């Protein structure tokens, strides 16, 4: 290495080490439902709830969700048009296509899918009403790694 480069190396390494790491999909878990999350999706669609894995709904459901953001399950989640377009494209490309997710659940709610209800049929009704849980949409209350796309049932901890 030239002397110049050698002298530059230590400061460069120091700067690189000090710069904040962008959470650009890092920490999604090894097999986060097969998809690395778009940073804009995590930011915009993970602000009020965990960013739900796109594979949990079929494309038609996502389309409906994205077409009515000002009335998003009782709240205004509106976004500028370019962001809506970018997110819609990504959701369409990464939506669920497996047999289990073919159904468009009532109100396009993941938590009303037949597979969800079946998977959670051992959870007592009272658990959903715990203050720490509030609703079945609050995955991370029990699936502690849900915001990294990891819903492994061995990591479930139902709060008191």
């Amino acid at each position, binding site marked *: 290495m030239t002397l110049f480069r050698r002298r530059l190396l230590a400061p460069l390494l120091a700067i*690189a080490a000090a710069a904040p790491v962008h959470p650009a999909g890092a920490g999604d878990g090894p097999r986060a439902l097969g998809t690395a999350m778009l940073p804009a999706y995590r930011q915009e669609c993970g*602000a009020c709830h965990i960013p739900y894995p796109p594979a949990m709904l079929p494309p038609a459901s996502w389309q409906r969700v994205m077409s009515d953001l000002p009335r998003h399950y009782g709240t205004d989640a*509106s976004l500028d048009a370019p962001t809506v377009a970018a997110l819609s494209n990504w959701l369409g490309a990464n939506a669920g296509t497996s047999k289990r997710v073919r159904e468009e659940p009532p109100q396009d709610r993941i938590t009303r899918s037949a597979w969800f209800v079946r998977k959670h049929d051992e959870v007592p009704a009272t658990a959903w009403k715990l203050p720490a849980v509030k609703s079945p949409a*609050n995955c991370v209350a029990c699936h502690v790694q849900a915001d990294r796309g990891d819903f492994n049932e061995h990591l479930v901890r139902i709060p008191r």
Partner: protein
Amino acid sequence: MTRPTRSRIPFIPIAAATLFAVAGLVPKADAATPAEILSGYSAQAGSTPSPARGEQLFTAGHGREWRCASCHGAVPTQPGKHAATGKPIGPLAPAFNPERFSDSAKVEKWFRRNCRDVVGRECSAGEKADVLSWLMTLQR
């Protein structure tokens, strides 16, 4: 003359990685301070902001299900919690959370959504100035 041996330390990849890391630190177009955002809204409103009116708007009910305080807390110097999902929300007062009111596009987005939910319409520039001026009075 012998040829210099190639260094084992990959200079060019390290330099490239540093550039990428530093690029993330370049200020974005919407970057601002709370004071700048406040003066923008005041200028638009053509009036002096009133922290008292801002506090009132923030904590009072507006005939709908939620108040600002429902998610942010009546004195938003602590973390809040989303009223429907339970998701933690960082403190809103800028003195307690340096990320707040640092990006004008983000501020506009959340005022649009949350005023529509809480008040049933968009907040005026004067109302936004009032609320922000009150939030800026909340100090440690």
